[in-house]
């Protein structure tokens, strides 16, 4: 008889449903096909004027229309699409009745420029526009929909209602590690025995002018605008930044016991989660790499495995000079000489950096890697960085035996999170 608990006596947490949307397309099938074909979803931005911007491309999701557009509405819609796919695959619960809590990774919500400009128009050209004037026209119920829309909890509120998740839904942000954190919260809830199932969703539809400019002002973005599909160059010597992108990933997590009891197909195991915060700087990693090293080690020890058992690393791999260097330092410190042999690829070379969604999007891709025994490439890898001697699975997907994957996510504010995903319980 198979045990339903891991070597630490905790319920084993399995994945029974997955959904994904990225700039490559909607759904696992389309994404996997393009991802393993080495296609890029990065394109020149057409959503808004890019005059005067240093970066004019992004991995936008324009094929899922949202009217009127706001980043929060798009985030919500992308989260819905991914969650629908995941729940349908899991075949769990019934319509509008998901039997567990929602953990949602979502970008911080805020009133956006179109709404601010609407207030400006409501004030009219005859009087000075300032926040006092904006306050004067904001009340009376005329804009009540914007209160509902721009509460931080609004996306989780709507997804909880649509899918009928149970209890208080949690909206979380650990910056670019948010997607991994959402999965970690689900894993922990199931391990505690609080829930038999959890819906973990991570979504981001942030490509709007101010968000792009904010990253641009921090010199974080690539300016390789032409051709856009060659912009993201993780681990290459000529990498120059990340590329903003949109997307969502969703996973239905269940205890092994609950999943097998209802005869669900098990797609993979979340064997371990690790985290560790960095106190060095708001946007930079500690130069000694200790927080990343500690995070990776925490994930391995949480899974009860050693680094030799990892066959593939799904890198954070943003393509910023800083991240990729620090990721190599962290991985090579833990994996030693094996760091040069183990395949390490960056999905972001193709889909861009889906920010709050990235950890979950890449967890889905890691699980698809396990399912198909095929490693997606790092594209745009033409000029290797000799300081980063990873096997980055350059430019072409590769068939390989993969039983355990490590997926890393790092973010502003000293956020580090790593997941260990396996085919079978370890």
């Amino acid at each position: 008889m198979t045990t339903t608990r891991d070597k630490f006596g905790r319920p084993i947490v399995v994945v029974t449903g997955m959904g994904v949307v990225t700039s490559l397309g909607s759904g696992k099938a389309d994404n996997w096909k393009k991802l393993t074909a080495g296609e890029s979803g990065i394109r020149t931005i057409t959503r808004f004027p890019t005059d005067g911007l240093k970066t004019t491309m992004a991995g936008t999701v324009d094929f899922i229309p949202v009217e009127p557009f706001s980043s929060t509405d798009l985030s919500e819609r992308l989260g819905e699409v991914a969650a629908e796919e995941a729940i349908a695959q899991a075949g769990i619960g019934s319509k509008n009745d998901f039997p567990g809590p929602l953990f949602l990774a979502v970008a911080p919500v805020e009133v956006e420029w179109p709404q601010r400009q609407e207030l400006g128009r409501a004030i009219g050209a005859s009087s000075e526009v300032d926040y006092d004037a904006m306050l004067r026209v904001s009340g009376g119920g005329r804009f009540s929909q914007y209160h509902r829309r721009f509460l931080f909890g609004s996306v989780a509120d709507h997804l909880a209602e649509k899918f009928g998740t149970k209890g208080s839904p949690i909206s979380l942000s650990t910056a670019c590690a948010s997607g991994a954190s959402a999965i970690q919260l689900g894993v922990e809830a199931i391990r505690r025995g609080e829930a038999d199932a959890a819906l973990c969703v991570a979504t981001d539809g942030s490509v709007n002018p101010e968000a792009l400019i904010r990253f641009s002002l921090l010199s974080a973005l690539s300016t390789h605008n032409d051709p856009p599909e060659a912009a993201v160059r993780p681990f290459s010597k000529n990498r120059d930044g990340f590329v903003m992108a949109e997307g969502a990933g969703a996973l239905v997590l269940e205890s092994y016991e609950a999943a097998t009891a209802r005869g669900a197909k098990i797609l993979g195991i979340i064997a371990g989660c690790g985290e560790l915060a960095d106190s060095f700087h708001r946007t930079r990693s500690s130069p000694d790499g200790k927080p990343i090293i500690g995070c990776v080690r925490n994930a391995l020890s949480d899974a009860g495995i050693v680094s030799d058992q990892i066959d593939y690393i799904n890198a954070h791999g943003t393509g910023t000079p800083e991240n990729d260097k620090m990721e190599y330092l962290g991985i090579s410190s833990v994996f030693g000489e094996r760091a040069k042999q183990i395949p390490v690829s960056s999905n972001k070379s193709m889909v861009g950096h889906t920010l709050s969604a990235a950890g979950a999007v890449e967890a889905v891709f890691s699980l698809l890697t396990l399912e198909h025994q095929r490693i997606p490439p790092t594209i745009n890898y033409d000029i290797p960085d000799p300081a980063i001697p990873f096997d980055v699975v350059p430019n072409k997907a590769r068939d390989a035996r993969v039983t355990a994957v490590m997926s890393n996510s790092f973010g502003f504010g000293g956020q580090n999170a790593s997941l260990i995903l396996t085919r079978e319980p370890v």
Partner: protein
Amino acid sequence: MTETKSSNPGGVEVWITGIGLATSLGEGLDAHWDALNQRRINVDEKNFAPYIVHPFAPVNFDTQIPKKGDQRQMEAWQRIGTYAAGLALESAGIKGNKEILARMDMIVAAGGGERDLAVDSNILNSEAKGNSAPGFLNERLMNDLRPTLFLAQLSNLLAGNIAIVHGVTGSSRTFMGEEAAGVDAARIALARIAAGQSDIALIGGSQNGERKDLLVLYEFGNFNLTGKFTPVWMRAENSGFALGSGGAFLVIESRAHAEARGAKPYARLTNVVADMARRKQPGEVKATLERLWSKVGKLENDGAIITGATGAEPATSEEQAFLGEHPGFAVRATGTTFGHTMETQFPLGLALAALSISRGKLFSPNDPSGLEVEMSTPPTQIVVIGAGHWRGEGMALVEAIK
């Protein structure tokens, strides 16, 4: 919706061993205790008129955030929170204790998004004067936004700043979602410790209520208290909340961890439960509170309630109806004294509950309506309630350690 399962189903006992408060009433536990018992309220009816806010009482930020460079990288909400977090660590006796801080977990309930009002206003003014060329917005934002403003806006950067300034690095999680974020921060941190997933955690939040951009968001929904200040229980005719300013942080840890390091507890955090009613029918908030009440723990009849009731309707009237069915409990509404600190209101309630238990007295009522009454006996059980102005209901049980 069924409520989330109890966050401490008979697991490890969890103590509150540190409290950090910096609010409109001042900083530190003694200052808060005195102000509460003197029924002091710090409210500003003029500077944001007709809106009312509770301004942050000035502190010397240098004492908790020694580097000016760090202070400059933050907006007010982050400075307030980082300051209060430092007070909590100090109160728990672990400030600067690298061994503990390096493995200490952190869950922060955060808003964010503090705007540069001048930049926004200038852009909108230019647009009103017909400046609508494609790329105008881009050009202005590229030139006018301070590059570091983004970091002062990001929700998770309060936790990030606490890590940088105080060295809390075991983990760093930020929950968003208004009032419920504060409830869930406590709920999840408690559940993790109770289940042995964590030994010690810093939880809390902060808000700067002196923000016109925040007033705009709540004005969309007609939630701001306007005109003349009234206590929370007397706002039926003129409902709404006055935004509050403050940071409230707590250190919670397993009893074994606290005892091993010789830490003195303020109180026990026995349980936190939460739910989210859809609020489509009248009475859903009241029914949800009743259900949470039945789950929060075994309650004696002479306890107290500290509620974060906002003054927003219909939630506050429903909560009042719920309270009416539990007349044995002395009630205090933090909203009257502190205003509405949103994500921070529930941690604030936890802090005041633990403080009251540690002082052997419930602080004075501050309510001419008569709903709040004196409590003459030392409280041994205090239920903390948080019903969000729009969504989210939560409840905690804070108890004396016998």
